[in-house]
């Protein structure tokens, strides 16, 4: 009875409970206000969807974008209404710099560094105090590591073919050229007079000129992926540079049986019946040797070492990048492979393997830099009223030990300069400089022409430039991509002695 009579008391107690609940609800609202107004506010106020940013874009001049020599790549002009619009140096840089248009939004670095270029960037504290000043905006100029001349040469080298070229300094990760073709003229998108027709035409173009292939295109790598397999094999200890497989020479003729599936190879009769080691297998680009190496390394280690090179997730970069993959990852076998057949094929780049040109350039650069992966970067400094802020090189990780990287370096030198290698990589050698590289011919299945690949670096003993060249459906790697790479590296080394 006591229990029930206590429940009949006046309502004070239950009303108190209601008051507590609604007070907590208000507390949650205050917390949410703090989240949006303070915690994530720095991101939101820089977003191109913020009307303050949009309004500022019309009245506040954006910061300039300069190449490494100080050449102006992007500047401002005024239209008839006195509002600013962007003018760019030329189509060669459009895939990198992008565009900043009031109507069509932002792309490229103009998008990634919108806040800095508009002058809205800064931590929460400076943001809180900036509003006390006369102008809320302090635009920064961007200084890029890009070499405009090299960039233009790279775009010209690709010509009217679809493809991509990435060139970077392997010791710092600074990108010197980042070409994707076909490209477009960003100034036509930002110029109010031509914007509408130009943008519509670009969107309708079936060659997708707005797609930055170097960073967002994902391609079958073919034999250039063998460098990744070699790094995984050496790094995991599964092989040494002198590892040979006695079944390999015979398999050259009959094919290698993996789980009833025959891995074919046969385009290098010159080596006869001698079992190949790392250097000679790389020189002749032996699929059987790399398949066996992949199988011995195992799927788990192959995926793990690829992951250390940046596979499996978008790369940390100033532009958006697509994630490269070794395998689709849906299988039950170690590493996510379906079975050993897929692993064997992936080991020479013909499985469910897809890579971006930037990723392959990093593979070459890591070998060149004694196994250390540097964070790729385009923006090296920000300049505003407060002065210049340098963004220094950043070492991401040591992928494999330096001596193992040197072994692969030698193998890649053999692939370019060796008596047999030379036949596959015609034209990639920089005259007078020891050159390392690896060509790739990525079969697409079906009847189309293969993708033509080349990755490499020079000079091999103290590399100053690493490169990845991809030309879509252009034929054999040694015939198309390799000469482009040799010519561009030669030009760069000559201009930067």
């Amino acid at each position, binding site marked *: 009875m006591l229990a*029930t009579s206590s*429940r*009949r008391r*006046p*309502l*004070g*107690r*239950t*009303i*108190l*409970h*209601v*008051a507590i*609940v*609604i*007070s907590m*609800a*208000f507390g*949650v*609202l*205050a917390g*949410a*206000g*703090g989240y*949006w*107004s*303070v915690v*994530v*506010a720095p*991101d*939101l*106020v820089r*977003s191109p*969807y*913020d*009307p*303050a940013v*949009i*309004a500022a874009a019309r009245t506040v001049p954006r910061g300039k974008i300069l190449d490494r020599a100080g050449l102006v790549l992007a500047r401002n002009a005024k239209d008839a209404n006195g509002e600013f619009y962007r003018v760019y140096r030329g189509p060669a840089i459009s895939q990198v710099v992008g565009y900043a248009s009031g109507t069509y939004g932002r792309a490229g670095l103009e998008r990634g560094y919108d806040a800095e270029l508009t002058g809205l960037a800064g931590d*929460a504290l400076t*943001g*809180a105090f900036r*509003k006390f000043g006369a102008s809320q905006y302090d635009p920064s100029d961007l200084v890029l590591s890009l070499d405009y001349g090299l960039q233009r040469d790279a775009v010209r080298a690709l010509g009217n073919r679809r493809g991509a070229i990435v060139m970077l300094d392997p010791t710092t990760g600074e990108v010197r050229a980042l070409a994707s073709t076909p490209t477009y003229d960003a100034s036509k998108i930002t110029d109010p007079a031509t914007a509408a027709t130009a943008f519509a035409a670009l969107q309708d173009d079936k060659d997708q000129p707005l797609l930055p292939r170097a960073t967002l295109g994902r391609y079958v790598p073919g034999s250039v992926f063998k460098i990744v397999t070699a790094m995984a094999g050496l790094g995991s200890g599964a092989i040494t540079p002198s590892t040979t497989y006695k079944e390999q020479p015979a398999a050259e003729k009959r094919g290698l049986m993996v789980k009833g599936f025959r891995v074919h190879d046969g385009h290098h009769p010159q080596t006869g019946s001698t079992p190949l080691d790392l250097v000679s297998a790389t020189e002749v680009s032996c699929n059987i040797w790399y398949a066996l190496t992949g199988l011995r390394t195992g799927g788990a280690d192959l995926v793990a070492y690829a992951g250390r090179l940046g596979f499996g997730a978008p790369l940390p970069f100033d532009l958006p990048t697509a994630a490269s993959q070794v395998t689709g990852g849906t299988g039950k076998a170690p590493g996510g492979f379906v079975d050993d057949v897929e692993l064997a094929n992936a080991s020479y780049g013909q499985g469910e393997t897809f890579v971006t040109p930037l990723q392959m350039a990093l593979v070459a650069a890591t070998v060149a830099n004694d196994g250390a992966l540097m964070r790729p970067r385009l923006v090296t400094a920000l300049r505003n009223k407060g002065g210049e802020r340098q963004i220094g090189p950043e070492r991401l990780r040591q992928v494999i030990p330096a001596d193992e990287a040197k072994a692969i370096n030698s193998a890649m030198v053999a692939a370019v300069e060796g008596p047999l290698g030379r036949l596959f990589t015609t034209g990639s050698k920089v005259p007078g400089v020891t050159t390392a590289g690896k060509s790739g011919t990525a079969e697409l299945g079906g009847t189309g022409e293969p993708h033509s690949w080349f990755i490499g670096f020079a000079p091999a003993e103290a590399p100053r430039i690493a490169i990845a060249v991809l030309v879509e459906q252009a034929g054999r790697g040694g015939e198309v991509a390799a000469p482009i790479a040799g010519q561009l590296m030669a030009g760069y080394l000559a201009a930067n002695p």
Partner: protein
Amino acid sequence: MSVSPRAASAPTLPRILGPIHPRPRWTEARLLGIVAVALIVGSLSLGMTLAHRFAPYDAGGLAIYLAALGGAHVAQVLAGRRSDQILLPAVGLLGGISLLLMQRLPQDLVTLKVGGSTIGLGDIQLAWLCLAIAVATTLGIVVRSDTWLRRYKYTWAAVGIALLLLTFVLGVDVGGQRLTLRIGPVSGQPSELLKVILVVFLAGYLSENRPLLIEQDTRLGPLRLPPLPYLAPMVAMWAIALGIVVVQRDLGAALLFYAVFLALLYAATGRLSLVLIGLVLFVLGSALMASLFDHVRARIDIWIDPFADPLGTGYQIVQSLHAFARGGLLGVGLGAGLPMVGGRLPIPEIHTDFPLAALGEELGLVGVIAILGVYLVVVERGLRIGASAADDFRSILATGLALVIGVQAVIIAAGDLKVLPLTGVTLPFISYGGSSLLANAVVVGLLLALSDKGVEPPPPPTAGGWRSRLRRRPR
């Protein structure tokens, strides 16, 4: 017999206007003084920002508003009632902030032709605010008896349902929602009035049946529930809420009604099991609605990730969040926010659905928390009036009225801040709109009246009633 004849005599008829016995209200006067100073400073801030002069912005409008507040204070002093002294200043501050905001927004958002001239948003809102103050004050002074609410609860329920049906049938679709009822030249949103009627009905029903709901049990597995027939209103309430969602597409009103109902059910019975069942019904209902109706599902999708389509479906809420972000801690200052792009405000429907986002930008997190604090004060006063009321009916009525304001403020603030899906309810006392202001004025007026304990005691319990039913309780 020492029974006093006073108590035995029948209750006297309500006095409409008795002889005048003024009673000073110093707390209210002091608080109103602060409100006046604050609003003048706010207007000054607005004037300096927008007109670049050291003078209040639209000083005339503000003067009229402050005079109305002062008039309400004087009227209450003269009436001599011992009613609450905090509600009027708190609500007056919110209304003043509303006035500053509406004066500052583009005046052509809403226009009205009066005689030969056209008046804009700020002036219309000023007129509604003054009318609302008059309504609240009049109710707070005049209402001395609650019989008219207590006795006719089913009549009120019928009026409410009639209003609802009328809106279902004759309502005008505005922005995909059938909320507006237009009869001749008068148009309004009945759901605003409906919430008051709902609370009156619930107070009557729950106070009458409280002992039964508390004492009797039906065992359903491990649950101990009140007799099943007395759960019928709960199911009916649930069905009405669903009906509002389906026919009127008004998620906000449905959520408000249902939340207030559950809170009152708990306040009256103290039974957590009822609230739990109510929440289960709510989840089931929401799932049902989401699976059946695209507009409900769309709202939920937008809520989960508005940034998926920041220029399309998620536009409003994304812009609201951007406004809070631009405001930061201290705000950009009254009149300095809301960047216009191409002559358009950043947030559509800012004056009805997103005033809090506008205030979040211009007053910052610090200002938003202050405004939420004022709402909490209003709710707390209402609940305190409820807790110390003379009987169950008045307790539940005051609690319900306080919750109507509090829960509505929470729902729309949570919508603006992406804590809940966005629903189109107004922010009490701040949003533009006559229906909303007048309905909330009725709420404040009734709370003022209920807070005066020196009035006619509630009627003694009648013989029969619940106890005759209690007697038939099976053993």
